[in-house]
């Protein structure tokens, strides 16, 4: 089972061939980065069959971003040690980055008003209709008939990391323990790549996560705590619908 990607283009006249190109681009990225495809570069690197220095420029670029993040997050983001089996897994950064790469093709085709939603990680470009922002509902972790909150956004990315989705796969790389304190963290900001990474990292950090997100200019966090409170940073305040 994969992840659903929804592409919703509101501009008239965008050729449908763009969507083909987006799918091809995503397929290309998965071919290179999937940890489930034995022939992917990441799998070959993990097995020691491919030296990182000989990997494609794209793979080296992404692994470089992973290493930068490992430093700037003080070890919280760790593509090389977070899995129980210790294998290389840059998936924490690849998904958001891949969707952003694909969405660039829409921009290049002239689209200015569209949304892409990949498994809950959202790029909301422009407006769904003139004068109205995109309304992005934040999933409530356990109150089943409601979203926790709605964010009204234009030209922003929204990424959520939470226990109900994949919490058991995110662990504090320094203790190996599952994170505690938060049920979900939603990060809003200009880039989906970083919103996604910051959400993952902030969730691993737990209750200290939202404040950490706020240290990155342009990015804000809205968290749902284990005792079922909503917490958000100032950047999010004007986006609350």
């Amino acid at each position, binding site marked *: 089972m994969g992840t659903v990607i929804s592409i919703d283009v509101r501009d008239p006249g965008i050729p449908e061939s763009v969507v083909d190109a987006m799918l091809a681009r995503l397929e290309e990225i998965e071919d290179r980065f999937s940890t489930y495809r034995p022939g992917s570069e990441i799998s070959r690197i993990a097995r020691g069959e491919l030296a990182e220095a000989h990997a494609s420029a794209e793979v080296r670029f992404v692994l470089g971003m992973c290493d930068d993040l490992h430093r700037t997050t003080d070890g919280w983001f760790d593509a090389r040690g977070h899995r129980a089996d210790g294998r290389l897994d840059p998936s924490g950064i690849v*998904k958001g980055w891949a969707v952003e790469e694909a969405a660039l093709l829409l921009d290049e085709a002239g689209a200015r008003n569209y949304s892409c939603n990949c498994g809950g990680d959202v790029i909301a470009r422009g407006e769904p209709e003139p004068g109205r922002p995109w309304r992005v509902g934040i999933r409530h972790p*356990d109150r089943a008939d409601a979203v926790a909150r709605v964010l009204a956004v234009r030209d922003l990315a929204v990424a959520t990391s939470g226990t109900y989705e994949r919490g058991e796969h995110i662990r504090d790389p320094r203790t190996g323990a599952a994170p505690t304190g938060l049920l979900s963290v939603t990060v809003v900001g200009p880039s989906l790549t970083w919103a996604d990474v910051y959400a993952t990292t902030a969730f691993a950090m737990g209750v200290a996560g939202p404040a950490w997100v706020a240290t990155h200019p342009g990015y804000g966090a809205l968290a749902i705590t284990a005792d079922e409170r909503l917490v958000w940073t100032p950047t999010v305040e004007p986006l609350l619908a």
Partner: protein
Amino acid sequence: MPKRGAIALSLTALALVLLFSFKTPDVAVTTGRTTAIVASGAGAAPAATSGPAAAPLSAAGQGRNTAPRATAAPAASTAPAAGAGGAALANGTVTGQLVQTRFGPVQVQVTIAGGKISDVTALQLPNDRQRSAEISQIVEPMLRSEALTAQSAQIDLVSGATYTSDAYAQSLQSALDQAAHG
């Protein structure tokens, strides 16, 4: 998994792609991708109805069908949406295909009225294990509201997802394909 359907871009068309294995480390097999158009009828439909003509795509890969598609009607309108080159969804109740997940089977039923989705019901959701039961409790009404809020003009997108919601979307998609072809 063979691909179904195809993508059409129109003002409120959604393209669904079951594609990634990223961030789904429990899942051993990537199933390939399924591409299809989903429904329109979103209450959030803009007033303009001049979407680009939606033609079937011919993307790489085998077995794409003609794009089922439906053009959205504005929320306030009761007219079946058949404008802008779109085909309205046929009225009636359609059952989607059974989709297996690691938690169990997922199957949904869609009711179409006036060319729009009027209801989505989960016929089957995973409940055979405690873990699955917990997920069903959380997910069923959530999935329901997720699918219906696309029509409600309340929300354009939801941030947050589950494996089960993927299967839900897939089953929903097949039901909508049938409705569009009906």
